[in-house]
């Protein structure tokens, strides 16, 4: 894979350009002095907004912030203050504001009030940007600079720093920057691609299940048959469906999109799909405009937002895994065997692709096709159980903190844990090495509420995840894996045989 961001090459599926995917990879890979520069929650939120082209209001907010940072920086360079917040968190931006709260550059038209930057424009328009919003806007700025180019936005940045800028002028700059980003996406993210993919699935299902089929008729065999049925010749629409993982994801998203659409018949939900979708950004956490899919991940986002982010309730790898499935547990549970296939042979297929890039020989290729995955379905069940146990232990450890602080403080908030459970909770607490689970929190009464909220979130997450776990536990893992292994080998050989 090239490591640049500006090539025009496209992956063989999804219609997403290497450049666009590369920008998000670069955001995720960027290191500050104290670890990753951006929080995962901000990158995922930005990715969702870019995928649905819902970032016009984000750019509008960003323009205010660029103006404010441009005024505050002694060299007039807004970009400096973005990177002064290291990492890009609300706390990081609070430090930036606090370092400038006595700045001579502040005025009646531009002032800092606690965690808020306030703007008053000469045409009597007011606006404010809170530090809680700045990490997302920093990631958006980074995305924009990578997509459009730093040199290409110099004039816009200079205009934004103009002392007598009107609100109208700022809006025009915002619209211009949005148009440039939109043009970039037109080149790198064809809007018709998703429609084409969905119709391709629908055409197959109409043929396979009959016109007017019901979603309930789609089962694991339907998904497998779709993958095996794809015409692999060059230029075919099926080129988007070479990877089994992509097929599984697209079937779950197809069902999810229909389920969500139907569920919204009785709910006024213009914010998610309508022209005012941008407001959903502003109220992303706890707002009214959340879609069904977003609800699942909102719990994960809450854990990564202030104040809960003081404690690492879930490790990064598990967060990534949960973020991938919590918004579609209904579909995954329905097609549990396909999920196991995707986890297991998806990984195997990635190994084959990687091997082909490394020019593996024919014998090695055949061996890899026949035994592609490092794990089997039983391993996946073990991994799933471990994740569930980990969530439960963290919940117990959190309750131990609440119980301990409550007992010391003689507080009404003490959570009753029986002797056996208390022993388990204590052990769980001392077995966790992540940020926030140190002995010192047991003496800090301000942490009780935080751990109680964390325990509630973990309970919700675990209940959602348990649904998936129970479904995959119903699969006869050993028998199904033995049956699937040669079937996948045959298909892998058909897909990649000509390349080895």
């Amino acid at each position: 894979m090239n490591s640049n961001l500006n090539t025009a090459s496209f992956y063989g599926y999804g219609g997403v350009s290497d450049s666009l995917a590369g920008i998000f990879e670069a955001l995720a890979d960027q290191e500050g002095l104290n670890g990753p520069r951006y929080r995962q929650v901000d990158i995922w939120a930005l990715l969702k907004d870019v995928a649905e082209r819902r970032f016009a209001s984000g750019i509008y907010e960003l323009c205010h912030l660029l103006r404010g940072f441009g005024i505050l920086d002694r060299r007039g360079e807004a970009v400096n203050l973005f990177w002064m917040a290291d990492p890009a968190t609300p706390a990081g931006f609070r430090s930036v504001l606090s370092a400038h709260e006595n700045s001579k550059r502040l005025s009646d038209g531009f002032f800092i009030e606690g965690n808020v930057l306030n703007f008053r424009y000469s045409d009597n328009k007011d606006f404010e940007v809170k530090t809680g919003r700045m990490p997302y806007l920093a990631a958006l700025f980074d995305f924009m600079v990578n997509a459009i180019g730093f040199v290409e936005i110099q004039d816009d940045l200079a205009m934004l720093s103009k002392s007598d800028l009107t609100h109208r002028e700022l809006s025009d700059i915002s619209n211009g920057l949005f148009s440039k980003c939109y043009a970039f996406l037109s080149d790198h993210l064809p809007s018709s691609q998703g429609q084409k993919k969905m119709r391709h699935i629908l055409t197959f299902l109409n043929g396979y299940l009959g016109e007017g089929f019901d979603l309930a008729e789609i089962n694991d065999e339907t998904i497998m048959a779709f993958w095996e049925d794809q015409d692999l010749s060059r230029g075919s629409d099926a080129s988007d469906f070479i990877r089994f993982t992509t097929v599984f994801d697209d079937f779950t998203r197809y069902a999810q999109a229909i389920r969500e659409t139907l569920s919204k018949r009785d709910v006024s939900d213009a914010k998610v799909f309508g022209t005012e979708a941008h407001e959903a950004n502003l109220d992303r956490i706890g707002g009214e405009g959340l879609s069904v899919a977003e609800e699942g991940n909102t719990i994960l986002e809450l854990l990564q937002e202030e104040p809960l982010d003081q404690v690492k309730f879930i490790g990064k790898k598990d967060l990534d895994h949960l973020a991938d499935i919590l918004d579609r547990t209904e579909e995954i549970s329905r097609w549990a065997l396909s999920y196991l296939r995707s986890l297991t042979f998806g990984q195997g297929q990635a190994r084959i692709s990687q091997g082909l890039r490394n020019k593996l020989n024919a014998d090695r290729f055949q061996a890899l096709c026949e035994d592609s995955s490092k794990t089997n379905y039983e391993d996946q069940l073990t991994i799933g159980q471990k994740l569930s146990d980990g969530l439960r232990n963290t919940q117990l450890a959190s309750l131990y903190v609440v119980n301990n602080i409550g007992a010391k403080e003689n507080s009404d908030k003490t959570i009753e844990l029986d002797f056996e459970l208390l022993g388990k909770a204590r052990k769980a607490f001392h077995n966790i090495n992540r940020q926030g689970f140190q002995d010192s929190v047991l003496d800090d009464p301000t942490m009780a509420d935080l751990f109680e909220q964390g325990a509630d979130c973990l309970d919700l997450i675990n209940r959602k995840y348990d649904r998936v776990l129970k479904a995959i536990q119903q699969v006869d893992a050993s028998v199904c894996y033995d049956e699937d292994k040669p079937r996948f080998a045959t298909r892998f050989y058909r897909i990649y045989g000509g390349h080895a």
Partner: protein
Amino acid sequence: MSWNLLSEDEKRRAEERFTGLSIVDNIRQQMLAESRERRYGFGDVYQFATNAHIEMTSGLQKALKQDDKLQSALDQLLSERVVYQFPRAAAASSGNLESREGDGFSIQIKHSRAQSGQVYIILKMEDAFQQEPTAITLKSGEGQYLKKLLPLSVDGVFQFLAEEDDEFVKTLRDVASEVFLNS
């Protein structure tokens, strides 16, 4: 639940929703792939240009070669954010340079008498400059970047020893190289 139960408007919305979700899946899969290489973007370029302690990596170097926008961003940042940028050596110059003269700064390369094969790099600064540089960045004619932290100055002079065949010394001598002093 059936596709046919949806109105035309609902079908359109379902397709839009599917498109968004599918794109997120595709990009997320790329991001989480175990075998992928580290990727570089503007943030990495910004940190290299503005932080004297951040060195050039082979990955970022490769990304700069492949991405014109990234290269332009670095050129812009370096030209704006440095304490001083030496003028390019005269077109008529050829071979190795033993010194570079600038407005308020000069660099000399002198052989060490004590250690053969070693040279002193001596950077002199006039009093007029209020901000002392903390690092020196070179851009070779082929677009390779090298950076070295400067020692503390004594009476406006920064001096350090280097191997004569060190890439940094060779690049500093090269007529085609550009020289920047970082803050």
